[in-house]
Every structure is written in C-alpha cells, then in structure tokens.
C-alpha cells in the first residue's frame, strides 16, 4: 500500500500536465452535470412551493349543524392523504371576501343576508398532491351528505404533474448523457497515462509484479483524480451559483445543493475515476 501510494504520487509529479488535464476534464464534466443538477433542484424546489398551494375546497350545505361539520372535519383529517383541514364559517367567508375583494366591498357591505357558504379547506400531504390523489380525495368528500360542491384546480394540477414528469425525464436523460461523455473522456485521459507508462508497466511485470500490483497505483491515481475533479466541480458550481444569484435580484431565491448531493457528486467523481482507470489498465494488461 505504501508503495502504491508512492507510485501514484510519483505519477502526479512526473506528469503534472497530463494529471491536471485529467482533473480538469473530470471537473468540467461534473460541472456540466452539476449545472444541470442545479437547474433541476431549483425547478423541483419551485414546483414544490407551487404544489404546497394545492388545496381542495368543499362547500357545505346551508344550515348544516356545526357539530356535524366538526365531526366530519376530524374524519377528513384522518384521510391518509390529508395534512390539514380548516373550517371557514359563513361569517368568516364574508369577512375574507370583504378584505380580499376590495372592488366588491360596497356590494358586500349592503347585503342583508350572507350569500357565501361555509367551507372546509383541505390541504394535502407532500406526495399526495398529484392529480390522481386530489381527484380521489375530492370524490370521497362528495360522499358526505352535507357537502354541496367540491372545487379544486383540476386542470392546473394535471399540468403540474405533466411538467414535473417531463422535467424529471429530460433531467435524467441529459444527466446520463453527460455522465457517459465524462466517463469516456476520463477513460481516454487515463488511457493516455497508461500508454505513457507502458514501458514501466512492462518492466514491472517482467520483474514479477502481479497484475493487481500494477493496477494499484493507477486505480489510486484515478480515484484521486476523480476526487479532485469532484471538489473542483463543486467549487465551480458554487462560484457560478453565487455569481448568478448576486448579479440578478430576480434569481435571488435560488437554492444550492444540499450536502448529501455534494457528497454524492464527489463519490460519483471518485467512482468515475476509479471505473475509468480500471477499464483502461485492464484493457492494457490484457493487450500486452
């Protein structure tokens, strides 16, 4: 192990240019994947804030006793999809209408009777905010005899679903394409390093080094290059992120990766470096 480490470090020192090239190649490949990831993370974040507003409103029949509604509220709150149930009484509905709909203030003031029905505002748990779950819950609500009408943004929820699926698919495809390109490029740079040291490898084998012994330094080198490339890519992503968010007030609300994403990115870099050197050295050892 000691020797493996020394050999790997020696390789960095002997071919600084090629090593730097490999590291920047890995870094740029991961950077591109990272930029796309940032866009994906932010879209997801934006969608989830939109999704939080997914709400079902169930209007109750006039004259329904409050006890019945209170009982039903707790029943509805027990639905697996439901996170909160909020009762809005007729008076409260009127009060809201007066404050929110300023244009009609006069019209509401002159009313002798309150025309607005009481309602239950139901919010759903994350994961149950897709069109299908919303429709299921709405259907169940209609089963209560005192519920007059159930409303929810059927169309825009379906559109949101569609958008989310599309984005997920495109993200996956573009990310995979860039990852493949990155692996090919890393494989090529490591292959260059292997070819450059072909003489050394043949001498090692001639004096009785095992194949694993020959591989060791290259694998370590690949892993270290992947690690450095991953860290560099994170730095570049962070730099780009702070540049973009500071330059435009419009984009100030953007979110950055979570630590787990960053760790996954670096691990991915290491895995790419390791995998690419494994393939390159393996192929070389088979060929000679």
């Amino acid at each position, binding site marked *: 192990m000691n*020797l493996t480490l020394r050999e790997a470090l020696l390789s960095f020192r002997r071919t600084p240019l090629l090593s730097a090239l490999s590291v920047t190649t890995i870094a740029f490949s991961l950077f591109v994947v990272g930029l796309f990831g940032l866009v994906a993370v932010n879209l997801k974040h934006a969608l989830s804030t939109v999704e939080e507003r997914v709400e079902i409103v169930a209007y109750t029949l006039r004259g329904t006793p409050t006890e019945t509604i209170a009982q039903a509220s707790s029943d509805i709150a027990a639905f697996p999809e439901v996170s909160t149930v909020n009762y809005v009484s007729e008076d409260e509905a009127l009060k809201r209408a007066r404050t929110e709909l300023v244009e009609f203030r006069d019209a509401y003031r002159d009313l002798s009777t309150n025309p607005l029905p009481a309602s239950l505002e139901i919010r759903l748990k994350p994961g149950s905010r897709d069109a299908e779950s919303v429709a299921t819950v709405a259907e169940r609500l209609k089963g209560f005899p005192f519920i007059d009408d159930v409303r929810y943004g059927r169309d825009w929820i379906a559109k949101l679903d569609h958008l989310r699926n599309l984005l997920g698919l495109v993200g996956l495809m573009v990310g995979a394409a860039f990852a493949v390109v990155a692996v090919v490029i890393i494989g090529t740079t490591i292959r260059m390093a292997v070819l450059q040291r072909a003489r050394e490898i043949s001498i090692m084998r001639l004096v009785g080094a095992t194949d694993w012994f020959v591989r060791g330094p290259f694998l370590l080198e690949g892993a270290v290059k992947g690690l450095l490339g991953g860290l560099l890519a994170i730095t570049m992503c962070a730099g780009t992120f702070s540049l973009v968010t500071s330059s435009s007030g419009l984009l100030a609300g953007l979110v950055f990766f979570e630590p787990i994403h960053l760790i996954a990115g670096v691990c991915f870099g290491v895995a790419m470096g390791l995998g690419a050197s494994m393939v390159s050295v393996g192929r070389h050892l088979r060929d000679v």
Partner: protein
Amino acid sequence: MISFSSVFKAYPKGNGGLRDVSFRVRKGEFVFLTGHSGAGKSTMLKLMYAEQRPTNGTVEVAGFDIGQIGATDIPRLRRKLGCVFQDFLLLEERTAQENVAFALEVTGAHRETIPGKVMRVLTQVGLAAKAGAYPRELSGGEQQRVAIARALVNDPPILLADEPTGNLDERATRGVFQLLRDINAGGTCVVMATHDLDLVKSANYRSVELRGGEVVFDSAEGHEAQR
C-alpha cells in the same frame, strides 16, 4: 531447470517462430543461443519467461508448464528468473539503486531488507559507487550492469539474457560477459542469446544454434543436429 519438447511456435506474420524444438538446460549450466536475427532466439527466451506461449509442445521452466501457466502464476515464475535485455529496460526517472530496489518492492519484500540487498548486488556488479546515478548519467556498460543487478537481486536460479552486449562497445562487452560468467560460477544457470560469435568462441560453454526456428547445432551433442 528448462526443458523444451517438440515445441512449435507460430506467429501470425510467419517470422521468428519455432519448429519442433527440443532442448534441455541443466541446473548451473551456461548456454549460448546463437543464430541470425529472426532465427528464433528471442522467441525461445520469451517462451521461457512466459511472455509467449507455445503453439504446440511443452515448455517447462523452474517447475512451471508455460503452456498451461495461469495469469497469477506468471509473476511467481518471473521471480525465479532474472531477465536482461539489449536495451537495458531501466526506468529513466529512477536512480540505479531505485531501479534495483524496484524489483524487490514489486515482489513485496520487507522494506528493511531492501537497502542491504540492493547494495550487495550493486557491489557484485561493481557499481556501488554509482548507486545514486540516473541511467542517463551512466555509460551503456554501466546501465547493463544495473540491469543485471536488478535481475540478480531476487537470487533467481536462472538468468535469461537477450543480446545483453548488443548495444555495447568491445570493452564493455567483455566486462559484462565476465560478470555473467562470474554469476554462472556462483551456481546460477545462464541462458544468453547472442549473435556475437567471437564472444561464443572466447569461452568453452555449450552453444545452441538456431536457423529458421530449428535447432541446427548443439555443442552438447558434439555434432550437427540431424534433420
């Protein structure tokens, strides 16, 4: 130590192969392999250190069957052999000492034992004073001595030398050859491929001549091989 029985080796291009070679090298022997280039000398050596496998027939070296040897056994075989080549095959970025130590390190030798062994063989080949020199700072003869030291450092019972004096002037040639004789005198079996007939005549060792991939003369049998 080494035995070839009815060995055939065919190359895709057709040159340098072997045809029905049978020959045997005993423990402690010194054998010259002679013949023109392409006669099959290097092929024979490559079969001995398992760089190549026979197309047909059996090659046995130090107890290993080269035709059947597995990938994990090749390093074990090579640790029992020392190999020396015309172009030295030294690592340019390492000193003489490091080049020799390298052969011990790759075999997983204990770190503490390495410097002592390295200095012992460098002294044996007469290069102890230049242990810290890089190959480019050494003459051809000195570089070949480093290569021989590297080949010897694992105390192999067999030393294979492929044209070890091919790139050397006359004086260096004599020096390196004398070194190989001394090594043989110490009990190591030496197989040396060369086309330098003066060298072959200068010593009373067994010589095996190859032509077109066949053994045409073996001094151990004292007469031209019957074909």
